[in-house]
């Protein structure tokens, strides 16, 4: 097991400032500060809805004080890999909705795309502004060794959690201003401005002045509502629900107390199904009637593009290295985790024979729900899961149980290693913008590998160093 702070009793250079800070501060003071941090979070009201576990559903997502550190050189490598992946995923989306070259070449099975519910026939032949489909690509990374990061999954639709990246840093700067005084930690607070610029860059052809941006939320009952309002606020954009919008003369308008105002770019945080009842869900009152027509005729831009989800399906994931080769002619900088596709009979046989050792996921699942972590499951759980896989092999993929890195974490008044992952947010407009850092999620239960906040995970401030110590 690789611990990011200490290897062979030696502190790794990127963690030197954190190690020194932990020593100087001492555990009792850290514990006190941790309580202050929790009070601060409660006051701003950041909560995260957790389903299916009982207790308070609007639970506070636990914040761990000990920063997770990535060295400058490490980040340079990660950033190149993330940007490469974001470009390839967008190229793939353009291709599958146009000439389908990668499918014709047999590099990705055609069936995986065309029969995928996330593939929207309405998007065929349409050119979104800038040819961008996924404007915020969230790439989940894990580290398994000093020199090895791997991509666990891609999120091309509306990855959430970026508000924690911003809030975690803000809280740390309030509690420990001295830590940041030397300027060794690269700032993350440029994200909202970068997001705004990205959205403005993909304004629709009908937009003739400074683009008006709106954040479209399902409303206060959504678990990420706080994030929606927070981002709208920081970007200076309107926060709207579908009922605040209407379509007239090919444009989208927002109802305001001073009359209708045009909306050029919609950063939507709702699913495709709920965009437009005239196209997707005739039974639904949700959505904006006529929105798709306005979008497809160039009157508004929807970010991410409808149908972008076909690129982040867990079965498509295994082909991302192919995409990088096919569209960019490059070698993947970031590795995939080896994945068995249960749709393949040989893979299925292997998976069924090794269930207790594997992590098995639903191809269209997310949030850590509905997965099997073989080594941590009871025999009954494994057997029940086996029946599900046998009944619908195409619905599942499996991966080896990864030996995730651990990072120092304050647990019960002591510093202990806990498993972590990393989700950076890559913005794609006319250019690619990547905030140095991201969201580090930490599995707070000892030995647990599931970092999802819905499954008892916490978060950490993530530091990217501006330069490595010599």
């Amino acid at each position: 097991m690789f611990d990011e702070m200490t290897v062979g009793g030696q502190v790794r250079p990127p963690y030197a400032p954190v190690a020194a800070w932990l020593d100087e501060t001492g555990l009792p003071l850290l514990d006190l500060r941790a309580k202050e941090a929790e009070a601060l979070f409660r006051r701003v009201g950041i909560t995260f809805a957790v389903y299916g576990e009982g207790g308070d559903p609007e639970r506070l997502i636990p914040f761990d004080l000990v920063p997770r550190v990535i060295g400058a050189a490490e980040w340079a490598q990660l950033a190149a890999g993330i940007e490469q992946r974001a470009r390839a995923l967008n190229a793939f989306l353009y291709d599958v909705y146009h000439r389908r070259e990668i499918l014709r070449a047999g590099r990705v099975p055609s069936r995986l795309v065309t029969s995928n519910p996330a593939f929207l026939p309405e998007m065929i032949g349409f050119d979104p502004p800038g040819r961008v489909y996924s404007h915020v690509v969230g790439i989940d990374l894990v580290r398994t060794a000093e020199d090895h990061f791997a991509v666990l999954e891609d999120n091309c639709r509306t990855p959430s959690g970026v508000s924690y990246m911003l809030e975690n840093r803000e809280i740390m700067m309030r509690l420990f201003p001295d830590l940041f005084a030397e300027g060794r930690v690269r700032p993350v607070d440029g994200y909202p401005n970068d997001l705004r610029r990205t959205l403005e860059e993909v304004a629709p052809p009908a937009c003739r002045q400074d683009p008006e941006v709106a954040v479209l939320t399902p409303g206060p009952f959504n678990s990420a509502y706080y994030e929606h309002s927070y981002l709208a606020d920081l970007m200076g954009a309107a926060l709207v629900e579908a009922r605040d919008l209407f379509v007239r003369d090919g444009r989208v308008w927002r109802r305001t107390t001073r009359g209708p105002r045009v909306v050029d770019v919609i950063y939507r945080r709702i699913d495709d199904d709920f965009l437009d009842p005239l196209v997707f869900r005739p039974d639904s009152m949700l959505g904006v009637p006529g929105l798709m027509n306005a979008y497809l005729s160039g009157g508004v831009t929807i970010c991410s593009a409808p149908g972008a989800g076909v690129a982040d399906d867990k079965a498509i994931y295994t082909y991302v290295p192919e995409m990088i080769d096919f569209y960019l002619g490059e070698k993947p900088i970031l590795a995939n985790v080896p994945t068995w596709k249960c749709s393949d009979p040989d893979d299925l046989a292997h998976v069924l024979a090794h269930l207790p050792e594997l992590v098995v996921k639903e191809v269209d699942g997310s949030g850590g729900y509905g997965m099997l972590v073989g080594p941590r499951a009871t025999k009954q759980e494994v057997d029940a899961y086996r029946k599900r896989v046998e009944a619908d092999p195409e619905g599942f993929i499996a991966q080896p149980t990864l030996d995730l890195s651990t990072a120092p974490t304050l647990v019960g008044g002591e510093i202990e290693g806990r498993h972590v992952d990393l989700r950076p947010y890559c913005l794609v407009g006319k250019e690619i913008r990547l905030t140095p850092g991201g969201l580090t999620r930490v599995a707070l239960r000892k030995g647990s590998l599931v970092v999802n906040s819905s499954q008892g995970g916490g978060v950490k401030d993530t530091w990217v160093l501006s330069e490595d110590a010599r």
Partner: protein
Amino acid sequence: MRLRLFPTTFDTQLVSRWRVSVNGEAVHPNLTDGCAVPEGVWSGDGPTEMLEIVAEGDVERSDDAGVVRGLKERTPTELFLRPTDLTTTNEAIRGLAEGARRPDRLDTLHTLAAAVRDAVDYRPETTDMATSAAEALAQKAGVCQDHAHVFCAAARHLGLPARYVAGYYLPGEDAGLSQTHGWAEGYAEGLGWVGFDVANRTCPTRDHVRVAIGLDASRAALISGAVAAPATGSSEERMTASVAISSQQQQ
């Protein structure tokens, strides 16, 4: 309101004049989808008592034995292997499909069309817009929409792309009024898309005007609308449709 009331011209269907209006206001298509189906939108101001949607024009049809050629489609045919809520298969549909399997694809489609019609009696008002293929087959009765849905579901099970067509139909003199009508198209490699009017046991003829297509009837709807709920009280919607077609023989 989303209107897909615009028939297109292809090899055997020439639309020489066509006009769509809502309460007298002309609506023009502003988009054409990947299956060459045009659409336009119309939205109203404030509360509405009645909307009158009129689509009228002249269409010249020549006989093509149901083979649709000359459409500028960009949608891959295999997309139409995808099941939908209304066309999900069950054991009965799969059984029906397997019974129609023949070495030749076109032969299979013809056999299947006849088998579906034999299995589902034409009985109006036994089903509605939301009846699935499986439900219609189970009750052995339905209307043209149900026939087309069962056909699509079964053809897809056999690996043959199939889709729903919404349009107009001029029945023979002894057969009552003209009507909006639904049929299906199946894809036969080498030949292309071939229409099957399962309800009428025929391939589309000069009496069929092809308007919109989709994976099922809900996705091929000629008119779909959404009504904003009023601030107080409730709203009700009802739609009635009438079709008048007259035929003129060319010399």
